[in-house]
């Protein structure tokens, strides 16, 4: 989780704060965090405050904040550093077709790690003089017009997460569905909900299946699923492109 980069930049006055967006909270994030063994603060965001506070709609995304607490780059796609090894491919045993299909789509997702990380290093070196550190006016201008639908969607989503915390599964589904309809641009809102549906066929990839079970597809409680949506929207559009 960017540990090498963080350890390199931290002596230059930079801190990485990772925020795990998961209504399963610490238990959902524990395995990944124990493997990563971060040297930086690693926070748990059970109710997706990063969405309502900062406009996160997908992961991984980042926000850059300067020493005075001013946002200098609002939410954008944050690919891993180019030097990080690619994630290990799945094991050699045959995967269920859906997982193979998911990997085919994921392989076509476009990111620009070189430009992001070049900008990051420029900001670390040059601070407010960096061309990549936006003025407050530019930061505000990049944010979307507010929408009462989106605000209502955030409220539904938070309630859905609370319902998950309190083990009220049917209630959670109802409020997740409302949030999906009101905030259609949020991949995290959809993927959080989808990831909670247990599918036996998925085995160890349970949370990545994000779609109907092959045994009982009629039980799928959501309007769509990951594979359908990425094919409809196009993997090239999964993340917004880098904007200087």
């Amino acid at each position, binding site marked *: 989780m*960017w540990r090498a980069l963080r350890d390199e930049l931290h002596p230059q*006055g*930079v*801190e*990485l*704060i*990772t*925020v*795990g967006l*998961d209504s399963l909270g*610490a238990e*959902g994030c*524990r395995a990944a*965090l124990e493997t990563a063994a971060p040297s930086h*603060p*690693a*926070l*748990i965001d059970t*109710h997706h*405050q990063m969405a309502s506070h*900062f406009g*996160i709609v997908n*992961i*991984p995304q*980042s*926000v*850059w*904040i*300067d*020493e*005075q*607490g*001013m946002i*200098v780059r609002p939410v954008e796609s*944050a690919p891993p550093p180019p030097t990080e090894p690619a994630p290990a491919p799945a094991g050699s045993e045959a995967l269920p077709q859906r997982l193979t299909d998911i990997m085919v789509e994921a392989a076509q997702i476009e990111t620009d790690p070189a430009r992001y990380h070049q900008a*990051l290093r420029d*900001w670390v070196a040059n601070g407010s003089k960096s061309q990549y550190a936006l003025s407050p006016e530019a930061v*505000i*201008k*990049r*944010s*979307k017009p*507010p*929408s009462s639908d989106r*605000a*209502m*969607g955030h*409220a539904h989503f*938070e*309630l859905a997460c*609370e*319902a998950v915390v*309190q083990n*009220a599964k049917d*209630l959670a589904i109802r*409020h997740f569905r409302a949030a999906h309809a009101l905030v259609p641009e949020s991949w*995290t809102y959809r*993927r959080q909900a*989808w*990831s909670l549906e247990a599918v036996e066929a998925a085995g160890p990839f349970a949370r990545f299946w994000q779609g109907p079970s092959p045994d009982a597809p009629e039980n799928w409680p959501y309007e769509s699923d990951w594979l359908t949506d990425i094919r409809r929207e196009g993997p090239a559009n999964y993340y917004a492109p880098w904007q200087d």
Partner: protein
Amino acid sequence: MIIQGTTVDAQRFETETGWTITSEGACKSDACIPLPFAHDGQTLPAKALAEAMHLPVVEAPELDAIAIGPESLGSHSLPTAQAPELSLPDLTGKIHHLSDFLGQKVILYAWAPY
């Protein structure tokens, strides 16, 4: 913002939304929104407060909880470039505040285990 029960603590409301409860109502910068109900300045009726401020409200009686959503006024969803406060726990349950990191450059990085 999730509220358990029907009332919200004024201090918490201020910390989470930036609106201060005063005798003139709910105030932020130069703006004040009068509140059409009696209150003691400390504990407020959550639903009536949100409605007076045109904040979205979703009720979940099954959980005895109310969700109040963010503001949707103004021309941009970020009215200021000042980062809002973020207070979240780590794996041990210890709460960290974004404001603890003033004086450093911060990369705030969202990820998920799915």
